[in-house]
């Protein structure tokens, strides 16, 4: 079920009435859990079955870690095998898709049915990281495993987050599941601006810019300028698309009485790669930082390599970003995109420009921003390219501009990107005003008008569904 569908909102309205009518937190949690499984299994009930099985597995493994400390390592390894095995298998499905289909077909099974309809559960990457974080925290003694299966299962499957995050920590959501919840109008007042912003970014900005961006990336050999223009378009599209999902997810959570984590904080104003990852997909960055970056850095500092500063500086970010690339997909474009950020972070750190670096004057500030923005756009080119070969070919062999027709298309692409970026840029300035300011109301009313004009009954999926 898609957040941008009437079916979802009608079902959600019914759920909301029932949920707030119940009043008892235990029943509210059961209702939310049931709703989450219906939401997740809507496209294919097998998704929900798989989610239930893996959740049950991790629930008992984490309890095993607590109850049987002598065998904690075994339970941890089993959980890692379960989660990384399932994630790895499905992520790299494309590599063995044809072979596996052949085997299934030869066994008299309709291979396509199994592979296309069962073996590609949306949101698997998101809920796997949630479960992994939980089990790792339990094994490190940071977290006491819960015996409340309903709350644990609800944490993993919480429907506003299951398909595309945010990847909230157990420590953030579990206490909220344990609290009594009664309806307050404040829930609604926190939710409505997020919902309108989310719908606007998805329906008006992302889905519109996507049309021309997709076309350029499907060309055999676009000119370099056209590629840059489409790269700028995609830079806007992916932010609008992904942050829209987060906004809607957070808005829905507020309506249910929960506060979830903000996932984006003006990422394109970043001055360094570390700064960018502190602002972009924040919950994923935090996960990578806490479970890959820091443990690796600590291990290196304790090892015989501790004197080799460049190694301590470069290996953790490169490994964390490599994992991020792999997490996004099985293609080489994602792997290289991850490594690209790893190398960038290491290079900036080697140059003495760390995450908290601040320029000393405005010229340096503008230059640092421009350089970082160029790096971000180039990163998205790698991410969006249909293949690395295609991108390398365009960079090495394509002309800068291929005549007047090409220039016209470049101008159209840039003007579309600029036009649809204006409302999001305006929001940065509006955020400096009080939320009670009249300008806010006019702004959101105009966004609503935009949504009504651009809404279509056939909205494409959110980009991040595929991860």
């Amino acid at each position, binding site marked *: 079920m898609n957040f941008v569908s009437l079916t979802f909102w009608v079902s959600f309205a019914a759920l909301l009435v029932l949920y707030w009518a119940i009043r008892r937190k235990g029943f509210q949690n059961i209702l939310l859990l049931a709703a989450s499984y219906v939401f997740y299994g809507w496209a294919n009930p097998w998704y929900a079955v798989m989610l239930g099985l893996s959740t049950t597995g991790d629930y008992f493994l984490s309890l095993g870690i607590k109850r049987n400390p002598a065998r904690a390592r075994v339970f941890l390894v089993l959980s890692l095998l379960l989660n990384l095995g399932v994630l790895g298998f499905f992520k790299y499905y494309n590599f063995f898709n*044809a072979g596996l289909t052949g085997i299934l077909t030869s066994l008299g099974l*309709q291979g396509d049915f199994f592979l296309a309809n069962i073996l590609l559960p949306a949101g698997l990457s998101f809920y796997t990281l949630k479960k992994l974080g939980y089990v790792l925290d339990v094994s490190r003694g940071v977290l006491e495993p819960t015996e409340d299966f309903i709350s644990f299962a609800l944490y993993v499957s919480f429907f506003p987050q299951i398909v595309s995050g945010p990847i909230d920590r157990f420590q953030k959501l579990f206490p909220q599941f344990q609290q009594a919840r009664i309806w307050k109008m404040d829930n609604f007042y926190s939710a*409505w601006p997020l919902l309108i912003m989310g719908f606007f970014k998805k329906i008006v900005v992302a889905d519109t810019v996507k049309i021309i961006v997709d076309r350029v990336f499907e060309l055999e050999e676009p000119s370099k300028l056209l590629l840059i223009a489409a790269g700028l378009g995609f830079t806007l599209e992916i932010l609008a698309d992904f942050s829209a999902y987060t906004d809607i997810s957070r808005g829905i959570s507020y309506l249910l009485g929960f506060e979830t984590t903000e996932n984006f904080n003006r990422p394109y104003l970043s001055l360094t790669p570390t700064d960018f990852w502190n602002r972009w997909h924040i919950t994923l960055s935090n996960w990578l930082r806490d479970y890959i970056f820091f443990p690796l850095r600590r291990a290196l500092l304790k090892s015989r390599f501790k004197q080799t500063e460049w190694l301590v500086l470069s290996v953790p970010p490169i490994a964390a970003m490599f994992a991020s690339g792999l997490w996004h997909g099985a293609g080489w474009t994602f792997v290289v995109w991850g490594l690209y950020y790893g190398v960038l972070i290491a290079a900036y750190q080697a140059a003495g420009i760390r995450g908290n670096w601040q320029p000393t004057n405005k010229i340096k500030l503008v230059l640092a921003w421009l350089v970082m923005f160029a790096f971000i756009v180039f990163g998205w080119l790698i991410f969006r390219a249909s293949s690395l070969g295609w991108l390398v070919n365009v960079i090495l062999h394509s002309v800068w501009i291929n005549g007047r027709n090409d220039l*016209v298309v470049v101008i*159209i692409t840039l003007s579309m990107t600029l036009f649809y970026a204006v409302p999001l840029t305006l929001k940065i300035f509006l955020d400096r005003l009080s939320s009670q300011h009249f300008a806010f109301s006019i702004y959101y*009313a105009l966004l609503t008008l935009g949504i009504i*004009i651009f809404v279509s009954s056939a909205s494409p999926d959110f980009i991040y569904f595929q991860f």
Partner: protein
Amino acid sequence: MKSFVQYVLCVIVLIAITYFFVPAFYGVNYPKPLGPEFDPAIRKVYEQKIDQTQPDIVLIGDSTAATNVDPVLLSAELNQKVDDISEVGAASTLWYLIIKNNIVTAKHKPAYLIILFRDSMLTTPDYRVQGSYFQQIDEFANNDDKLLIQLAFVNKMNWLEKLADQYLPPYGSRLKFRATIDGAMRKTAPRWLLQCEPACVDVALSKIFSADNFVSKIMSDAVNSANQYLYAPQNLDFEYQVDRSFLPEIIRLCKENNIRLILVRSKTFTFSAQSPAPRALDDYVNQFASYAARNDVPFIDLSDDPRLTRDLFLDPVHTNLTGRALFTHLLSELLAQYIR
């Protein structure tokens, strides 16, 4: 609380403004009848062509018909005058409109009308009616065609869309709003910076985004992905879909005008051993064949012909030149039994 109330008031004021703006700017008064607004003019290009060329057989389809069938060869093999009026991007809605407003209105009535289609195309009236396809449809339609509006548009609307379409100008006239915004996007900057007028912009876009410039695999994937709608479970439920489609009306129009309708299902490679066709497609085709037989409409199914191999196709649906010749030959062999 205060900001939400202010917001609601602002939305009400903005919508109230559109009640004055839309009639003045777009000429549409609210509340309006359900469905899109069509331009009153109807393009008569095929009516004129048919009257001019006086064909015995008219072939209609989408790009598949244009690439897979060679009308000259077909004409020679059948010894009949053949006119191909296929349109790229067409589907059953556009075919219905061309039949109703161009073919049966021509002074010269062709003896045969062949529709070349793929799988469930003839019973999915909402396939290829939005976006740029809408402009294509608008050329052959006007607001008097209630059946068109009902089958291709209104039937797919939910209660909320129906309400908004009639009473909410920003929604009901959203296509016009979007056309204005898109037009400004496409034309303003090129005009200022390059003195490139709208016609020049259209040429630039069509040249840069011509089919030859796309990565063939991506094009093939795009064709496949767009076609997936034809295989959605509800679209393969023939009994449910047929009365909600233009097929009965197309049959009626042809019979009323003494035009022998022949339906031809084209070969596609959308599915493979690795990715088999949904089982419901077989049931659909069987029911389609029975329906055609009940209505005395010849149905030719080329989809299973083993002589049409994958190497004869450029992508899952379009043949290459060798494939075109073979496809035309096979079609003419099968048509011969119905055409005298």
